[in-house]
């Protein structure tokens, strides 16, 4: 008899939200995978992302691991692709930086010396088109706003937990979503949003990746750990 394993949904989440996560949890069930709890109360173990591949560096002893950075409208994701993920690894070999890519990835959390940080372990990676990226931004904006709404209600277990752990500034997340969407809509020549875009640019600094936040990259971490499932 075939056992039907429930596949984890690939969540839609912006870099700002996912990369600010530090807390992990499991379900009650014995076989529960490890989930990351985001500041907006999303429990996730897999994500689907469309963004720009901005860095691709060979790492590891034999250079058999790629460290990649994917930038979206709110920040950037860091991922490691090793030969143990042959599909993603082989696909990545043929993709240059500054290319729009779509990836499905497992979410991993590592403990650095000073803090925990999130990285991605891509399962698939492929070249994406701008239209799909735009739709991804919209999907992700909608799903993020839905999470903000749940946080405001504060009824669900994960929302309560996220509030307790992160006490996030919901207004800031709303602004980030708005900015992400409005910036993308510039390509569609919407005149009425011009003012908002200007506002957004002023605020942009706030959403630049804080150097301190990514200092963990300089920490020596055991890369082999990344390859374990």
């Amino acid at each position: 008899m075939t056992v039907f394993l429930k596949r984890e949904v690939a969540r839609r989440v912006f870099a700002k939200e996912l990369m600010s996560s530090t807390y992990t949890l499991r379900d009650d069930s014995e076989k529960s995978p490890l989930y990351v709890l985001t500041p907006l109360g999303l429990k996730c173990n897999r994500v689907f992302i469309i963004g720009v591949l901005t860095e691709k560096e060979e790492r590891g002893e034999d250079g058999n691991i790629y460290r990649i950075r994917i930038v979206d409208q709110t920040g950037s994701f860091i991922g490691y692709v090793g030969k143990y993920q042959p599909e993603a690894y082989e696909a990545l070999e043929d993709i240059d930086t500054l290319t729009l890519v779509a990836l499905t990835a497992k979410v991993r959390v590592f403990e650095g010396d000073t803090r925990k940080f999130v990285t991605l372990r891509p399962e698939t990676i492929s070249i994406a088109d701008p239209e799909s990226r735009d739709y991804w931004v919209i999907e992700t904006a909608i799903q993020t706003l839905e999470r903000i709404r749940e946080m405001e209600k504060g009824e669900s277990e994960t929302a309560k937990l996220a509030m307790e752990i992160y006490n996030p500034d919901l207004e800031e997340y709303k602004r980030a979503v708005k900015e992400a969407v409005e910036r993308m809509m510039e390509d569609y020549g919407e005149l009425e949003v011009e003012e908002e875009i200007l506002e957004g640019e002023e605020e942009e600094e706030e959403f630049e990746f804080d150097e301190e936040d990514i200092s963990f990259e300089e920490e020596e971490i055991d890369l082999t750990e990344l390859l374990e499932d």
Partner: protein
Amino acid sequence: MNRVEKLAEQIFEEYKDYGVDKKEIIEKLKKLLVEFRVPENEALRTIRNYIIREYGAPATIRRERITKIEEIREPNRWVTVKAKVIQLWESSSPSIAQVGLIGDETGHIRFLVWTKAKKQPVEEGKSYIFRNVVVDDFGGVLRLNVTKISEIEEIGEDVEVKPPEDVSEEVEVVGALVAIQQNSGLIQRCGVEGCSRVIKMGKCPEHGKTQPKDDLRIKGVLDDGYRTYEVIINEDGVKALTGIDLEKAKKIAGETLDRNAVLIELKKMLLGKYLRVVGTATPRYLVARHVEFFRPDIRKEVEKVRALMEEI
């Protein structure tokens, strides 16, 4: 009894009290259906009107021909159905007043009420007769359209609805193709008549070594961020998306001496792409009947974000 006789019998039953002649009905029906190839409902209407005129039968006796939902199989038909409103969905356009799902004891179908039809809104859980609604095909999904000339009559009766688990449900899904499984691409099926199981390691799990037949398909995972669907796309679907059909797939495999080359090519073209799939959902699989790259109208989609933004 052939179809003509059956229909004639039906009409005769309705009007036998008015002295109608069954033979005459059969003759006329035959002429309309067999000789003139008139659609059935038109033929019936013609006969009924004839009887009303010639025999002075009251028009009100006209019993409606209620179509069962499972009988609705093709677009451009005008039908009358008796059904319960199972679900109402949010209308995506100001020109559509209501949209949702209705059902009777034989099945479910989507319906929509055009704003221009100016109808009283229907309510979930109530039963109605939807008269003179026209069937259309919206990207592979059949829908009932309530237009200006349609009628919606609420009825006291509670129409029994086929339970959802008995229905292999027609669904439309937009999602990202996040995985393509290994047993996709150019595959082999068991050659035994009526078997068609996929050959694994050179053997059919049922019949062992047989003369295999080639096939092209994709088994993958469609994911919309809320749930996943295990989707099966057959040769037609693969061809519609990639231009690769079975012949071309065989050629690729022949040229590279590698059947797996087809799968690699398909992955390159399809992984991470948003697809719109219309098909039949069973508890396990979504079997695609129609599949295309999803082309969003970003200006329209962004309105959803703005609406949500207002709300919170």
